[in-house]
């Protein structure tokens, strides 16, 4: 029985690859911040005077939401850096693909 418990602990640690995880309270706080940012996004949407100024504002807010989810909910902040490298490499490639496609189809050229 004791042997089983030891094995259980050992295997559990073996599957971790990370140290401390946030507490449920932190998860809740992150959720509240995400909700508030979303509310701000929707609120800003109705401010027509911002014109093209809305693009950097909403982009920054979205990046903040994105970063909060991957750092706290997906635990990249706490996990091994190789996981971050794998994911962020794919993300960077995706970003380059988007920019390349937009440039190729003259998205940035005023019609």
């Amino acid at each position, binding site marked *: 029985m004791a042997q089983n418990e030891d094995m259980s602990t050992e*295997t559990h640690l*073996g*599957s971790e690859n990370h140290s401390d995880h946030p507490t449920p309270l932190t998860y809740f706080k*992150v959720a509240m911040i*995400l909700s508030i940012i979303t509310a701000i996004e929707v609120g800003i949407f109705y401010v027509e005077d911002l014109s093209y100024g*809305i693009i950097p504002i909403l982009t920054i807010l979205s990046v903040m939401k994105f970063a909060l989810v991957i750092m706290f909910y997906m635990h990249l902040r706490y996990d091994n850096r190789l*996981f971050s490298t794998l994911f962020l490499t794919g993300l960077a*490639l995706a970003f380059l693909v988007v920019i390349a496609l*937009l440039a190729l189809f003259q998205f940035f050229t005023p019609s």
Partner: protein
Amino acid sequence: MIQMKAKVIKGARILQEAVTTQHGTDHEYTTTGLNHRKLLMWAFLGSDCMFFGSLIATYMVYYGKSKVGPFPEDLFSIPITSVSTFVLLMSSMSMVLAYAAIRKGSLKGFRVWILSTALMGMTFLAFQVFEFYEFANHEVHFDCSQVGTGNLSAFEESFQNECIEGVTTVDGIHDSDGNNLTGLTPKTNLFGTTFFTLTGFHGAHVTLGVIWLLSLFFYSFRGGVTRERDLDVDLAALYWHFVDIVWIVIFTVVYLFGVFPGFPES
């Protein structure tokens, strides 16, 4: 005979433990010291970024290039989509709480949170089905006296020829068989094609996620989800959070930028 049967059962147990040790609890040697399944999941999510990146880029490239309507401003409802976005964000919180519960060994907590995650995922899908249905059945209704006043959208203005003498209002455009001609389908225009492809693939990812979550929920009643096998929940959680972050981008790029009323007329 009985002894032989007992030996066979014992052998089967040893084999099962060996398999569990190899695949279930992930206690194997790896050169990186990291779990292969988790590494593979992150590699998959990185590649899926490129998949959605190309779909989002395609949507942006063809944005505003449709020759016929309906257009985004005729269809999108930001308040409704904001609610579904909120639901998906909250599902991410409940997912991570399900993972935290199983890490603490609380099977009851795990079941509560993972079921609530799946329910919120289904709610999001219901919103999407509702949205697709509304788009496909979109009808134009306007008063002919509004034509040329600037109060009608470009799409509505394109039907001003319907305002012939004696007609005061236009209530939907239909063919001779009574089919609605003003709905949005994937073949209506470039907007429809790119929009349904992008959001449809995201919806398919959410659907797969819901199935995965429900599988874990029911599997927990058969003893398949334990504290020692928390990686199974971790992988599902990573996938679920990924569909959430993809939606964060789609909501901003497709919906908010797509119909922002403050952009100057080009």
